[in-house]
């Protein structure tokens, strides 16, 4: 009698949970088949992983692209010109950075008669945005707002199309390989993702077809093409190279202390590992005195 009751309970709960698992399974299978969002390729970035570091030359090239192309529409307002000199960044010389800063015009309060004053930029100034307000930015861009790019590399990501039961594997894989560069993958895919619109798609006025942009219609025309920006260091100026370089630069803008952080991390981890080992040995010797 007792056991009957339990067998029923056990069977009921088990089938409950099994039913739940089956539902998850079918649900994910259906989704994976339909697909949600475009496929984006994982790239190899100099700054991903345990040993990742920004490549100074690449950041300098990337800055060149930002300055010559993107800066006419996109701000980078969280950066200061002095950041360009900082270690772990593009590491321009002070003179180079100052020359860059001086090209900007910065408002400087008011003069004695109350009129606004202006002066050339200094190293301590923030990057000046191309438009002084959103309305102006929109009216110059067909109603669309070019977002500030200061943290864009961390503000975008994508969904991997894998069957659900492999998802935990990818979570662990990214975690164990210290891979946080999905935002960079997305930017690269976006900048190289301009294609002709499929014939059955009606494009909005002034919109451009892009494979990875959500909804595929983006108000920004393809900003890059091959040989668009001159490289002084002899790197081949292909579209892909341009896209990689500007992406790396934007990644640095989002996370300017990455080099220092990963550097310090190694010391901390080694220190902790040694401490753990010592404590473990101490624990063994203390506990050797008693059975447990």
């Amino acid at each position: 009698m007792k056991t009957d009751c339990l067998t029923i309970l056990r069977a009921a709960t088990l089938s409950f949970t099994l039913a739940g698992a089956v539902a998850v399974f079918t649900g994910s299978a259906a989704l994976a088949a339909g697909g949600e969002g475009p496929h984006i390729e994982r790239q190899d970035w100099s700054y991903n992983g345990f040993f990742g570091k920004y490549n100074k030359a690449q950041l300098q090239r990337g800055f060149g692209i930002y300055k010559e192309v993107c800066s006419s529409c996109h701000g980078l307002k969280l950066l200061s010109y002095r950041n360009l000199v900082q270690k772990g960044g593009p590491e321009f010389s002070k003179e180079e950075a100052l020359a860059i800063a001086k090209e900007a015009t910065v408002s400087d309060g008011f003069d004695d008669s109350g009129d606004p004053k202006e002066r050339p930029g200094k190293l301590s100034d923030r990057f000046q945005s191309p438009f002084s307000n959103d309305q102006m930015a929109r009216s110059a861009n067909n109603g669309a707002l070019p977002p500030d790019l200061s943290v864009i590399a961390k503000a975008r990501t994508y969904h991997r199309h894998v069957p659900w039961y492999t998802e935990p594997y990818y979570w662990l894989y990214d975690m164990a390989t210290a891979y946080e560069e999905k935002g960079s993958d997305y930017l690269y895919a976006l900048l190289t993702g301009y294609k002709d619109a499929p014939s059955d798609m009606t494009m909005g006025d002034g919109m451009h077809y892009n494979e990875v942009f959500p909804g595929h219609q983006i108000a920004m025309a393809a900003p890059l093409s091959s040989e668009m920006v001159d490289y002084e260091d002899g790197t081949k100026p292909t579209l892909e190279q341009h896209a990689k370089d500007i992406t790396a630069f934007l990644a640095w803008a989002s996370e300017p202390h990455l080099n220092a952080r990963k550097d310090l991390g190694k010391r901390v981890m080694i220190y902790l590992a040694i401490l753990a080992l010592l404590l473990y040995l101490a624990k063994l010797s203390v506990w050797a005195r008693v059975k447990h």
Partner: protein
Amino acid sequence: MSDHSSSYVPSNGFTRWLDERLPVLRMMHGQFIDFPTPRNLNYFWTFGGILTFCLMVQLITGIILAMHFVAHGDHAFQSVEHIMRDVNWGDLIRYTHAVGASMFFLAAYIHMFRGLYYGSYKSPREILWILGVMIILVMIITAFMGYSLPWGQMSFWAVTVITNLFTAIPFVGESITQWIWGGYSVGDPTLNRLFSLHYLFPFVIAALVGLHIWALHVVGSNNPTGVEVKTEKDTVSFFPFYIIKDGFAVIMFALLFAWFVFYAPNYLGHSDNFIEANPLQTPQHIVPEWYFLPFYAILRAIPDKLFGVIAMILAICVLFVIPWLDTSRIRSVRYRPLYKPFFWLFVITCLALGYLGAKAPEGYYLLASRIFTAYYFIHFLVVMPVVGLYETPKEVPDSIADSVLGKEATSETAQ
């Protein structure tokens, strides 16, 4: 336990003087040096120490962050970026605090499942357990408020979604919600009070932890056998045995912690929170932090908003009464052959709900959330009382010393 005699001997004139006036050192000595602790605790018992470490890390990093943070809708996002870019070591302090929240919950959940597995909530540890449930409740509220502070898209919309739940309260819901907002929508006043309370609540947690440890030291630790301490043979002194073991465990935990802080600080976060809050644009998916996902899944599994909220709150509050729902005569699941599979089913259920909380609540996913939500409650309300009544436990050792040393040895002089 707390009345064991402390072997404290003041070592100099000052401590003797102090001991006659405020025997705080005697108390510390009694509670943290020669406190008798079961000799057979496994590493799951180190998570209480790990949680204390987490709380201290959150307090220290949080207080430093608050020195630079600006609780204003127009400046919060920028001030956080200022911390990340311009404050010395600011990125590490912020990442430690953000990752720390996740680590805190990871440790707390392991700590709780430990309690569930070894029956640590059962008499005489009901108050200890209830204080724990109060701690997790305050932790949830605190973490939620903390996540709102950077005022990114996910911050803003999470606050909007959760505060909107109060509108489900009949009759007065609307007024209460506006009272919480400090206006007609989530805005500056909301952010300010979230910050104020986010600073306050960790100290409430600290106070609750004090009571929690006090309660622990009155009744003493449970142990993997679930058999109460009977004689001195069953225990070892806290120092050096458990100080060193806890210390080792804390450092191992710190290694995992450091991995996230230094190599994957944003891995557990959400990219949308790097977009400044925009009340006019709803993000495509509003997803809470991972540690809330099971509760979020329960909330959305119920078709009615009010009942969804109630179910979500009950999901935690049911824990308050499990000392009385569990009818088993013995504590440890180790000796409960019938209950053991149900326990693991429950663990799977929690993991599944976590997975489902991150998925859109539609089609089969919704169906699965409903099934697992049902089991979540069935486990506590049906399985726990019924199985305990019917189960014949396996043979439980007579004492801790017995289980460690073998029966024969206990009669001899065992250390």
